[in-house]
Each structure stands twice: as structure tokens, then as C-alpha cells.
């Protein structure tokens, strides 16, 4: 058994920081948000440093085998720190103007991150559940943090109720697994199922409940109903947070629960994932066409992207995991960039970008922002030479390699449907004349513009030279097993 302290050091740092930020917020009386921002960023940096110190190629267990550090956990945790750091940079000014940049906000994001880390590192069903609850409760509160906003409260309540139901599903599934195998440790479950050598009727129920719970947390169709409402109701920075970082946790949860503990039932969950992938891709892309509100549109787009991630994962092969990891990393860059553009253009209350038509005339007034938007949405649509192309490419390649040609064809048709609404946004930004009553905000915040530009340039550069990311994701997924 390794030293608990070194394996879980990043989590310990996050926990201490989350509590001290809360206290400091009260102490400063919420007047000195810059220092809170600094402390949070420093926390992320420190945790990233200590996470990177852990070895990629060995599995370190802690807390009596309930907590694991392996390649998957290191990769996904580093991604989480990175994207949370960007989320904070992008949302700082917006939340400051709305007077929401308080100690509670930073504390809740850090607690959510702690939950994400717990899920990613869990090697026991109890730890999984603990992480899910910590993450979900923080997210419910974050959605409702703008307490004067009725829409946000409504979204939070919806999210809370549906999220609780999904947690219930998961827990019910866990209890059945425990009843059948007598253990909650992920490796032991796998061993027990392997030894039993027979599929049990009760177990298929457990499998369905667990898969449904995962799909719900991921936001895959047909369990996607909360996604558009929550995306639309929350403040844009919170939407950006919900849309990016928790995806890593869901991804880890799926790999830990399905690949690592129930690998014996691969045929069964494979078909479930495949069906959900196809429904998500088609439903997300078709429904998004009809949307006029930009966050709702991005919500449906998110559902379709989750479909692609599921398609990669449905192969049940290492290449599939690698492609899904690549996809989720690419999606993180694209989703942060797209929300970043919306936020940077709507920093003042009266000029918020709500409908896609509010982007009209962007190319004439802010050519650079329009260019960033062009790249980001082309990448979401999967047009080369952007990272979005290789994301789709790697998924489709792994699917065809697995011998599934028709799911690849469906994926491609749905991607084509998706291109229409991405093009529609580009069309509005480039071809339409500016609205007279809406003015784009003059941007003073230099660091925001620079970070956003670097983010979008990364989309192109990794699109041109994707090799290192492909190597990292492949190495990560090989080392999981």
C-alpha cells in the first residue's frame, strides 16, 4: 500500500482550498474577488503539479483500495484542472458585473472539482456514489447561485429532481451488484462476474440501471431532457462549467463501471451504448436546427457530441476508449471557446447574447471575434483542418476498424445534419447586417481576449498536428487495463 498522502494530495489541497476560500470570502466581505480568484487558480496549479508527479504506468491504490491513481485518472484530472482554470478566466468579468464573483462561487466550483476528482479516482462503488453526490449538489447550487433569476431557480429545481432520480437509479443498480457479488470493489466485482461464468437475470437489471444512471449524468438521449433547460436557465459561465468539466467525470465513471467492473457483460452494455449513441447523435443534431436561443442550441449540440463519445466507447475496445478520450479533450476546447465567445461579447447586462440572431453583423464590427467564432463552429461541425475533424475521424476510424460500417454511416449523416446549424450561426455572424438595437461590447479585458485567442488557435494547431494528443490518449487507454 502506497502512501495515502502522496496519492490523494491533489484532492487534499482542493478540499483545504475550497474551505478556506469560503472563509476568506466572508472575511473579505466579498469585496476582494481578485485574491479569491488568484487562490483558486493557484490551487489548480498546485493540484496539477502534484497530479503530474504521480506515475502514469502504475496503479496506486489508497484508502483501502477505494481510491486509485492510474493513467486514466491522471489524464482526466489534468484536463479538469485545465478546463476549470479557463472557465474561471472566462467567467470572471461576467460574474463580477452580476455581483456573483463571491467566495461561495469559488468554493462551490472547487467542491464540484473535488467531486469530479473523486469520481475519476474511484475504485469502489461507494466512492463513485460519494463523488457523484458531491459534484451534483455543488452543481445544483451553482445553477441557482443567481438567486434573483427565476429561470435559474427553475432550472436548478429541474436539475435537482431529475438528478436525484438518476442517482437513485445508480444506487439501486449498485445495491443489486452488491447483492449478487457481495463486494463493492471494482476489481473484485469483475473477478466475481468472471468466475460465475453465467449471465444472471438480476444482473441484467443492475446493468440497465447503472447504464441509465451514467447516460443521465452524461446527458445522452433518451435521458437528455434536463440538458437544454439547465443550459438555458443557468448564467452563461455556469453553463460553460456544466458543459465542460463534469463530462470528464462521466467519462471516467463509464470506463470504471462498464469497462473495468462489468467487462464480462461487454456484449450487453455495448448494444445499449450503441443505441443511445445513435439516438443522441440524430436527436441532438435534428432538434438543434430548430433552436433560436444560442445556449439551447449548444445544449442540443452537446447531446449530439455525447453521442459521438458514446459511439467510440460502445466498441468496447482500447482504440474506442482512446478515440473517446480524444473526442472529449477536443470537445472541451471547442465548448470552452464557443461559450467564451458568447461571454466576451455579452459582458454587460443589457447586451447579453441570448438568441443566435444577436450575433448578426459580428464580422463587420469585430472581425477577429468573428474569425474565432468561424474556427470554433467549423471545428464543432468537424470540418478540417480543425481538431473537431480528427475527433470525429478517430471515432469513426475505431468504429469501422471494429467492423461497424453502418453506425459510421449514421454518424456521418448526423454530422452532416449538424453542419447546417453551425453554418447558420456562421452565416448570421458573417452575412447578416448588424441589429440596430444591439451593440457588441467594447472589450477592455486583455487577458480574456488573449486566452480565448490561444484557445481557438489550439483548435487549429492541434487540428494540423494532432499526433501528440493521439499518442497521449492511446497511451492512457492502453495503460488503464
Amino acid at each position: 500500500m502506497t502512501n495515502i498522502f502522496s496519492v490523494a494530495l491533489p484532492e487534499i489541497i482542493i478540499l483545504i482550498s475550497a474551505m478556506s476560500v469560503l472563509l476568506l470570502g466572508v472575511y473579505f466581505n466579498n469585496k476582494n474577488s481578485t485574491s479569491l480568484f488568484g487562490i483558486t487558480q493557484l490551487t489548480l496549479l498546485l493540484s496539477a503539479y502534484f497530479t503530474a508527479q504521480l506515475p502514469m504506468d502504475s496503479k496506486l491504490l489508497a484508502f483501502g483500495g477505494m481510491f486509485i491513481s492510474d493513467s486514466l485518472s491522471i489524464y482526466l484530472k489534468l484536463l479538469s484542472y485545465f478546463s476549470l482554470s479557463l472557465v474561471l478566466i472566462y467567467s470572471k468579468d461576467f460574474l463580477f458585473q452580476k455581483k456573483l464573483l463571491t467566495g461561495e462561487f469559488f468554493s462551490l466550483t472547487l467542491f464540484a472539482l473535488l467531486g469530479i476528482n473523486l469520481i475519476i479516482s474511484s475504485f469502489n462503488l461507494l466512492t463513485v456514489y460519494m463523488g457523484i453526490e458531491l459534484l451534483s449538489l455543488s452543481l445544483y447550487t451553482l445553477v441557482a447561485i443567481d438567486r434573483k433569476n427565476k429561470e435559474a431557480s427553475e432550472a436548478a429545481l429541474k436539475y435537482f429532481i431529475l438528478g436525484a432520480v438518476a442517482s437513485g437509479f445508480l444506487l439501486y443498480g449498485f445495491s443489486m451488484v452488491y447483492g449478487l457479488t457481495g463486494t463493492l470493489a471494482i476489481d473484485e466485482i469483475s473477478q466475481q462476474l468472471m468466475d460465475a461464468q453465467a449471465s444472471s437475470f438480476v444482473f441484467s437489471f443492475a446493468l440497465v440501471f447503472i447504464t441509465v444512471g451514467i447516460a443521465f449524468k452524461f446527458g445522452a438521449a433518451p435521458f437528455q431532457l434536463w440538458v437544454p433547460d439547465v443550459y438555458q436557465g443557468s448564467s452563461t459561465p455556469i453553463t460553460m462549467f456544466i458543459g465542460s468539466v463534469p463530462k470528464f467525470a462521466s467519462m471516467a465513471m463509464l470506463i470504471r463501471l462498464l469497462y473495468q467492473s462489468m467487462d464480462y457483460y461487454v456484449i450487453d452494455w455495448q448494444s445499449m451504448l450503441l443505441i443511445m449513441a445513435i439516438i443522441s447523435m440524430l436527436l441532438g443534431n435534428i432538434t438543434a436546427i430548430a433552436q433560436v436561443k444560442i445556449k439551447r442550441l449548444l445544449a442540443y449540440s452537446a447531446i449530439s457530441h455525447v453521442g459521438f463519445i458514446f459511439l467510440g466507447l460502445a466498441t468496447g475496445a482500447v482504440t474506442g476508449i482512446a478515440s473517446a478520450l480524444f473526442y472529449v479533450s477536443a470537445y472541451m476546447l471547442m465548448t470552452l471557446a464557443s461559450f467564451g465567445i458568447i461571454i466576451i461579447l455579452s459582458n454587460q447586462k443589457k447586451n447579453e447574447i441570448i438568441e443566435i440572431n444577436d450575433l448578426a453583423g459580428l464580422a463587420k464590427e469585430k472581425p477577429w471575434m468573428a474569425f474565432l467564432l468561424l474556427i470554433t463552429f467549423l471545428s464543432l461541425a468537424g470540418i478540417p483542418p480543425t481538431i473537431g475533424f480528427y475527433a470525429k475521424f478517430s471515432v469513426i476510424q475505431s468504429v469501422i476498424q471494429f467492423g461497424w460500417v453502418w453506425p459510421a454511416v449514421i454518424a456521418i449523416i448526423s454530422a452532416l445534419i449538424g453542419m447546417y446549424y453551425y453554418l447558420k450561426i456562421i452565416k448570421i455572424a458573417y452575412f447578416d447586417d448588424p441589429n440596430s438595437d444591439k451593440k457588441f461590447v467594447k472589450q477592455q479585458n486583455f487577458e480574456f481576449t488573449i486566452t480565448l485567442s490561444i484557445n481557438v488557435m489550439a483548435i487549429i494547431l492541434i487540428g494540423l498536428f494532432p499526433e501528440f494528443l493521439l499518442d497521449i490518449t492511446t497511451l492512457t487507454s492502453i495503460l488503464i487495463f
Partner: protein
Amino acid sequence: MSLLSLAIWTPIFLGFFLLVINTKISNTVTYLLGNLFGLISFFITLYLYFLFDKSVQGFQFQEFAPWINYYSINYHVGMDGISLPLILLTSLISWLVIFISSNSVKKSLAFYIASFLILSGLMIGVFLSLDAILYYIFWEAMLIPMFLLIGIWGGPNRVYATIKFFLYTVLGSLFMLIAFIYLYTQTGSFSVIDYYDKTLTLTHQVLIFLAFFMAFAVKIPMWPVHTWLPDAHVEAPTGGSVILAAIMLKLGGYSFIRFALPIAPDAAIYLKPFLVTLSLIAIVYIALVAIVQTDMKKLIAYSSISHMGFVTLGLFMLNPLGFEGGYIQMISHGFISAALFFAIGVLYDRMHTRDISAYGGVINKMPIFGAFFVLFAMANSGLPGTSGFVGEFMVILGAMQENFWIALFASLTLIFGATYSLWLVKRIIFGVVKDEQNNALFDLNAKEFFVMALLAILTLLIGVYPAIISDITNQSSAVIMDLIQQSKLP
């Protein structure tokens, strides 16, 4: 830096350079710089022409660098006799489009010129890539500048046209991507040359061929997936129409030669009746559709589809004569259609309408223009002595070797082509001056005269001395014909 990379990346980087500096300089400087950049790019390809060794089979000036080892994707470019005339055409026409741009483009000239520079680099990239994914990336990336060109500088219905253009093309090319990935899983490589040696069963060949067909037939375009072209042409600015007709349509024909036919030759034979039928429908039916058009641009757009039907007919005859004829028809159509769209641009800049009925008796006011227009209309209908004749004649001969009836149907177009071309001339150039506005017309200015004269010379040159093209292509087309005629069944 090697020459082919220089030919591809020079216009792209210069285009971006122009975008970056455009706020600091005036429109005149932008125009002059744009021309300079276009000429630089043209002279690079011209230099390649003089260096090209006509007696060598296979690819010359090859460059190879590992790019994405993970999927064994390489930066692999090379040029043979099939690609050389097409890249010359691309860089020349792109420069002419930039040269004439100051006449009609009023808003954001730098962006307009930069789009054409980037577009020409990407199209040259398509013609030179020997790696499937490199090719695919150029092929898709090319859509972005064209999408913006039609959408920003186009006519009233431009948004519909440009989105239709984009989605149609992407639909096809995504199927091509599946075919490439499938071939990759079979051969473990994305190199086109590796695909040439791969044996495949007939079922697989047919599926792969159809996937390619989806992509290339849309691009050419063949009946019945041609409907995006008239819309895109009508709404595009003059330069956009010229590039679309002269080069983008050729990408489809080129890709059939480079990918579909040599990779799946048995499928081509198996599907020959189907392919020939579609080509004949395009030739005859679309020519009839062209006759009844009232919009000049639409008429020329339909005539383009009909002429590209000749290209596909020639290629799918799968005999050397038809192949050579189809290829020459591509080059010839590149010049003629470019000239016709330039001519329509000239009229449109003066009158701001494309309605045929608004014109009449133009020759009274614009005698030089009238002369050129008649020449190009004649070339379009396949008058001997112009380049239009050579290609069509060879294709019909190739068809005759195959089957009398195919040749008969194909030659019908000589009548229909003459009908729509000459009737167009009659209504626009000759006759009485119908509209008062026509009295305000003035003849070609120096720039327009230069463009028209250059294209006229090239059209006549290929017409009387087609060997200038076939000398270059001979060796390479022999290689491709060999590949097509060998069975690749296991």
C-alpha cells in the same frame, strides 16, 4: 523548400498576409499586392511546367514527410501529367479573377482577394496530394473560402445558395471519407499509391466506388445531384462563378481519374451502364434545360453541367480515346466557361441584370465585346478550330468504338449546344436595341480586353494544337489506363 509545397503554400500564406495587413493599406495597394501575389503563384506553376519531364511515367517532384504517424498519414505530394495542366489552369484563372476584381467588388476588397488566393492554394493542394487524408483536408478546407465568397459578395438569395453548396459537397465527401477509412483498415496506409495495388472483391469495389461517386458526382456535378450548381452560380459574384466553373468542377473529374477509376476498376466496368446513362442524361437533358433559361448565368451553368457530362462520358468509356477526350474537354471547358462567366460579369457590371430579355443589340455599343462573345459561344457549342471541338470529338469517337447508340446520343449535344449558345448570342449581341439602358453601354476597358484576349488565344491554341495538352498527359494517362484495364479482383 521544394517546388510543389511552394506552389501550394505560397498563395495561402500570401492570402493570410494580405488579410493581416489590410487595415493599414488603401484599396489600390491591396489590389496591386493581390495581383502581385496572384502572379507570383502563377509563375511558380509555370516554372513547374518548364521543369516537368514529359517522358517520365509516374510522379515527379515528390515530397514526403511523416505527418501523423499514429494513422500513418504523411505529407506526400507529387505531380504527374494529369495534375500539371490543372494546376496551371488553377493559378492562371485565380490570378485573372483577382485582376478583374476591382471592377465589380466594392466592399472589403482585401478579404475578397485573400479568399481567392487561399482558395487557389487549397485547390492546387487537392491536385497535388498523394495522401488520402491530406487530399481530404484540402478538399474540405476549400469549401470555407467559397462558402464565404458566395455568402458575402453574392446575390439576393446567396445564403440559401451557399448553404446548399456547402451541404451538398460535404454530404458526398463524408462518404468518401468512409471509403478512405475502410481502405486504411484494409491496407494500413493512407497513401494513394498503395491503394492502386490493393486487390479487392467486387462487392467491396462497388461499395468503395459508390462512396467515391457520391463525392465526385456532386462536385462535377452529374445529373441528378447537380441542383446546387445553378443556384451557386447565379448567386455567386463573377469571380466565384468563374472559379466554380473553371476549376472546382474539374476537381470532381480529376478525382475520378486519380481515385475512383484506378482503385476500383472492376466496379467501374460493372457500373458502366449506370454511369454512362447518367452522363448521357446530363448531356442531353441538361442541354435541353439550358435552352429554356431566361437568366444568362443559369444558362451557362446548365451548359457547364452538360459539358461536364461529356467529361464523365469520356472517362467512363474506359478506353484511351475517351479518356484523353474527357481530359482535354476538362481543360477546354476551364477556359471557355471562365471566359463566358467573365463576359457575363462584364455585362452585369454595366447593366446590373442577368436577364437575357433586358439585352439586345449589344454589338452596336460594344463591338469588341460582341466579337469575343460570339467566339466563346461558338467554342462552347464545339466549333472546329476551338478547344471545345477537340474534346467533344474525341469523346464521341471513343463512344463510337464502344457503341453506336451512345455516340449518337452524345453527338445530339452538338445540335443542342449550338441551339442554346447561338440563341443566346442572337438575343444578347444581335438584334435591335430593346432597352433604353443599353445605349449607356460602353465597350471593354483595357483590363477586360486583356482577360478576354488571353482566354481567346488559349481556346484557339488548344483548338488547333491539342498536342500541347496531350504531350504532357500522354505518359501519365497511359499509366492510369493500365491500372483501369487490369482486373483487381483477388
